[in-house]
């Protein structure tokens, strides 16, 4: 009896062990499809492989309709699919179109398409593919590129004409430089583009071809396109692997990866070890969202008092440990060509804050201001972090201290990030610390952040002049005139304080120096803030 029991007990542990072994067998069978490592490189100048680390790994199948609706998903796709024009670190550069110009009288852009481009499957690229792409996007909208403004697309030989329904200043960046051109012969009968995920769905014209995508491991493999019209591709194989940001420095040092974004603390050490560390332009801002729809923050004077009571430099020094730039009140960061240097900055000034509050009928009762017997008391909601969302705890705690120093009582409430977004969207808050990117791209982003409908927008429409200027800048095709309008909009925004930019965090990207990776002007395509531009891999 007892020996049987002992056997049963052993069996109990053996079964899961066996299952585990079996599973190991299955996994090895269904894991990553085995590829021969690059054998003896005959071309010494081309790198056999280049591996980029990404903390999230999986950004979807790299085809326009199946990558996830996030910037890095667009990047995965943009290595394979190309646009009419593109951007490098400085300006627009030719891509499928060798040259382009704008005809103001017809409100049309003319693109001269290259005639030496072939699709990855060997078929020639023609103007017909571009005409088809714009037709296809009317039926199947591509979220990254709003083509509403396109009235017609016609081709005459290699000359493509895109006529717009109204003047639209962001066109080159957000349409011509963002819409991935699809091969007609592949897509013409695809009715469900999201579900189209065969290797055929990843036939493009770019410097890289589709090799493999593994959702579970979060890995991508792109072999170089040897027939690329734009020049020689510097690596034979490009890979993306999943590595947490905390471990990227270790992975760089032990040669597991050649590039990746790193935490600010690691920048100096990696530079000393001979890695190239590049600093991102300020694309992202942490923002104090203000509920201007309900009292007392519906009053402009109280909002302005709030702005004077916040010490953004102290937040940078203490909460961000110096790894950020203090926010500019006009939202657009100082390193942007659209920045308004003359806009008012609300320097930290508790005395002016106090004067503004007293001017609005508040009197100090004890430590805090009060009006009609009611203490000036605001609830500040913020996210305490968690993988994938920013932790604003230190910012929020410091904000509370600063505001209470002036006499505004603050109650902190930490909640999950998406709950904060939801409450902001439904105006169910007083103050919230939140943040968003997109600051590098076309000033269209200013409209989205001020009068747009999303939860990242201040959604401030009380100032009709501000709304009018914002709408006008989109229609202004002359760059200097447009700049003046964008700067005017920032000045008006600053005067209203519908939200307050707290800081722009420093972000770093490290690489081993063999490929000269750079940040694209205004972000890749419509403004993706990533240091991976396909043209960095082409000579």
């Amino acid at each position, binding site marked *: 009896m007892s020996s049987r029991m002992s056997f049963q007990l052993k069996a109990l542990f053996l079964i899961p062990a066996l*299952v585990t072994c079996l599973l190991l067998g299955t996994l090895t069978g269904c894991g990553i499809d085995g590829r021969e490592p690059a054998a003896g490189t005959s071309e010494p100048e081309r790198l056999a492989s280049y591996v980029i680390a990404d903390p999230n790994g999986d950004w979807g199948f790299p085809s326009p309709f199946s990558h996830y*609706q996030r910037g890095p998903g667009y990047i995965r796709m943009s290595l394979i699919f190309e646009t009419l024009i593109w951007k490098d670190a400085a300006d627009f550069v030719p891509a499928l179109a060798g040259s382009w110009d704008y005809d103001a009288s017809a409100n049309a852009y003319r693109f001269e398409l290259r005639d030496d481009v072939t699709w990855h499957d060997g078929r020639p690229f023609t103007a017909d593919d571009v005409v088809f792409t714009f037709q296809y996007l009317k039926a199947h909208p591509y979220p990254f590129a709003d083509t509403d403004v396109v009235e017609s697309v016609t081709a005459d030989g290699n000359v493509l004409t895109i006529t717009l329904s109204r003047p639209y200043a962001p066109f080159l960046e957000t349409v011509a430089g963002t819409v991935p051109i699809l091969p007609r012969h592949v897509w013409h009968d695809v009715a469900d583009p999201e579900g189209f995920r065969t290797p055929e769905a990843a036939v493009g014209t770019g410097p890289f071809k589709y090799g493999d995508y593994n959702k579970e491991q979060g*890995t991508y493999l792109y072999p170089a396109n040897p027939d690329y019209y734009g020049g020689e591709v510097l690596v034979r194989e490009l890979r993306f692997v999943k*590595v*947490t940001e905390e471990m990227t420095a*270790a992975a760089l040092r032990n040669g597991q990866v050649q590039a990746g974004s790193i935490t600010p603390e690691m920048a100096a050490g990696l530079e000393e070890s001979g890695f190239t560390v590049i600093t991102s332009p300020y694309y992202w801002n942490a923002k104090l969202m203000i509920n201007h729809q309900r009292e007392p923050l519906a009053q402009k004077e109280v909002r302005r008092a709030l702005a004077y009571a916040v010490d953004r430099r102290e937040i940078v020094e203490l909460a961000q440990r110096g790894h950020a730039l203090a926010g500019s009140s006009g939202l657009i960061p100082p390193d942007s060509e659209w920045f308004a240097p003359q806009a008012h900055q609300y320097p930290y000034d508790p005395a002016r804050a106090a004067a503004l509050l007293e001017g609005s009928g508040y009197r100090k009762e004890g430590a805090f201001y009060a009006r009609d017997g009611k203490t000036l008391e605001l609830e500040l909601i913020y996210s305490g972090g968690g993988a994938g969302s920013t932790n604003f705890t230190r910012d929020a705690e410091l904000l509370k201290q600063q505001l209470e120093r002036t006499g505004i009582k603050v109650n902190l409430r930490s909640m999950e990030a998406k709950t904060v977004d*939801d409450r902001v969207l439904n105006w169910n808050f007083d103050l919230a610390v939140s943040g*968003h990117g997109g600051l590098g791209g076309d000033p269209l982003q200013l409209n989205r952040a001020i009068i747009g409908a999303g*939860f990242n927008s201040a959604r401030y429409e009380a100032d009709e002049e501000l709304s009018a200027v914002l709408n006008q800048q989109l229609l202004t095709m002359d760059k200097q005139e447009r700049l003046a309008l964008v700067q005017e909009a920032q000045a008006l925004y600053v005067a209203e304080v519908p939200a307050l930019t707290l800081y722009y965090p420093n972000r770093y990207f490290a690489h081993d120096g063999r490929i000269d990776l750079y940040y694209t002007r205004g972000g890749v395509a419509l403004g993706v803030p990533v240091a991976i531009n396909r043209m960095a891999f082409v000579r």
Partner: protein
Amino acid sequence: MRGKLINYLIALLIILTLNFLLPRLMPGDPLQAIHGGEMLVELTPEREAELLRRYALDQPLPRQFANYLGRLAGGDLGRSYYYAVPVSEVIRGALPWTLLLAGSALVLSSVAGILLGIEAGWRRDRPADRALVGLTGLLNGFPDFLIGALLLVVFGAGLAWFPVSGALTPYAGLAGPALAADVARHLALPLTALTLANLAGMFLLTRGAMLGTIRERYVLTARAKGLRDRTIRYRHAGRAAMSPVAARLGVRVGRLMVGLLFIETIFAYPGVGHMLHQALTMRDYPLLQGFFLVIAVTVLAANLLADIIQHRIDPRSGHAY
């Protein structure tokens, strides 16, 4: 036993209902969570309406629930909002890695915990016992992620003995034993972390049960018969101590799942934990339902298994019902 099965079925039904309701009771909605956060992409009202239709979120809740149950009966778990692929496909991809990591950790922590527990209980208050109790007490106080982070920093980043992320070296062209070795190398640190994190509970439980059984008369009888020490320890006292240990299996699987989430995140290890977290932040209802269902069924199955094992070890336990 049949009564018990009915209990399990009722539990499953309640779980299905909760699985459906809980994600929808969370503040926030999937449209905003998935499509609202990216400033570069505008969620226009037309697109919002189109997505609501596609996700069938424009229908009343009871209709949504009926549809869910109907499809579930046909084996269809629905389509993930964020990944835009069938939920079953997402789960099928993640589950094997989770089973590998969590299954191995469960086995290792159980075997080690039980063996050490029996030995420590047998040597109550002797130095070996005190040392083990002290050590496991310390381990028990550590949060799971801290053990993982320490191992990662020391053996991954510092000494570089083990890879710092992932479950295998991607695109290395490995196959057969070389691939198995690669998978094992990647598994080592997360598995050690998860095993250590779950060892203490099993150890303390076994040791406690041992302390009860070594005083039993049958142990005295076994001694009187002149049986060897080891035989008494494992076949008599140890076996009897297994009953409460087996009964806790279901609870332990649940706890393991929580630890798994942290360990997977720290080691960038593929699996259910990471996907579940993603599904939560994206308010991806169908995917959440799918994962909750898998986890609930696993815990229920573990409980059922525990009941069966317990019944085998101690046939009296079944009569309590």
